[in-house]
């Protein structure tokens, strides 16, 4: 199981009728959230994370890699060293090093990273900011939106 250094709220299994899309694959190092798991709340820690399931909340793994596998869903913000997305994201991705959107990715939000890679075929709607996120100038506000992105939203109403 994955390391629960700071995990709030609950992890619930989805209904049994939900088709098991794929067996969770444990990564060589790090933790896995299976396809039938839903997590609501904050997730922080110091190991890599692989997500097949659904997360509503923010993930902060500043020195590690977060991989959102195909079929996985995130509503919130990820702060990590490296981020790879194959599933769906509604929110922001802030990487110290690299953000990779694979061709199966579907994202609506903002990406901040020193290196950003988009694979053709990915569905991306939003903003990409080539910035050194390791400087820590992205402040996260409740609701999973960055302060800058949130400001953009509210200004235009």
């Amino acid at each position, binding site marked *: 199981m994955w390391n629960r250094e700071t995990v709030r709220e609950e992890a619930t299994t989805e209904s049994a009728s939900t088709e098991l899309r794929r067996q969770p694959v444990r990564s060589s190092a790090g933790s896995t959230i299976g396809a039938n798991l839903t997590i609501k709340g904050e997730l922080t820690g110091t190991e890599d994370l692989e997500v097949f399931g659904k997360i509503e909340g923010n993930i902060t793994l500043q020195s590690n890699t977060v991989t959102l596998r195909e079929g996985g869903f995130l509503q919130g913000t990820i702060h990590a060293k490296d981020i790879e997305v194959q599933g769906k994201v509604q929110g922001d991705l802030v990487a110290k090093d690299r953000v990779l959107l694979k061709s199966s990715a579907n994202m609506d939000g903002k990406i901040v990273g020193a290196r950003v890679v988009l694979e053709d075929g990915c569905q*991306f709607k939003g903003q990409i900011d*080539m910035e050194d996120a390791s400087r820590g100038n992205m402040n996260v506000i409740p609701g999973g939106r960055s302060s800058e992105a949130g400001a953009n939203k509210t200004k235009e109403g």
Partner: protein
Amino acid sequence: MVFSLRSSREQYKSLKESKLVQYENQQEPTRSLPFQTLIERLPKERKLKIVVFAAARESLFRFFSEEHPCQIWFYPLDRFLNEIPRCAEDELVHEWSDRVFSDFPTESADAVLAWDTLNYFDSEFLQALSLKIHGVQAKPCYLLASLSTRPKLPEHPLIVDVIDREHLRYSGWENIERKNELISLRELSEYFPGSKNLRSGLLRNGLQEVLFEL
């Protein structure tokens, strides 16, 4: 604000049903003098802020990010076209235009790339868009637009890849026919009073590209 499409629901259905094809010249990049001029004129000394009314393509993003740090806003119209079965065309336009107007950059934009997007919208939308751009444009700010010059477009260029500083590659949809009146270059320029037409060119796929300095 209510906008209406220039094209009919039937046309969009045919667009949905048609498949992305490799048309004859797709593998062959086309030289784009307006794009080349844009690249030459963009400022080099600071982070670029670019608005793109097109799909997020790896080549486009890589091109700009390799030149120097940049910030890019993507508003892909084609993504919504793919979702047509779930929404009427008015909703389609509503969603797209709402997104554009609610999430438009508030910082100075150096360039707006509108590849075959403006054809779809009526004068009310274009008027509102020009005001929006005018409100955030850097000095100078550039608008690169491509407009169709034929009533029938077998090479509907929803996808544009950037090959290098001079060349673009358009990918299209087949069998797209537009019966409605399309926006002309002169008509477009009227929405941006005071703009300068820096360069224009007719591409072999029937598109006219134009670069305005706003």
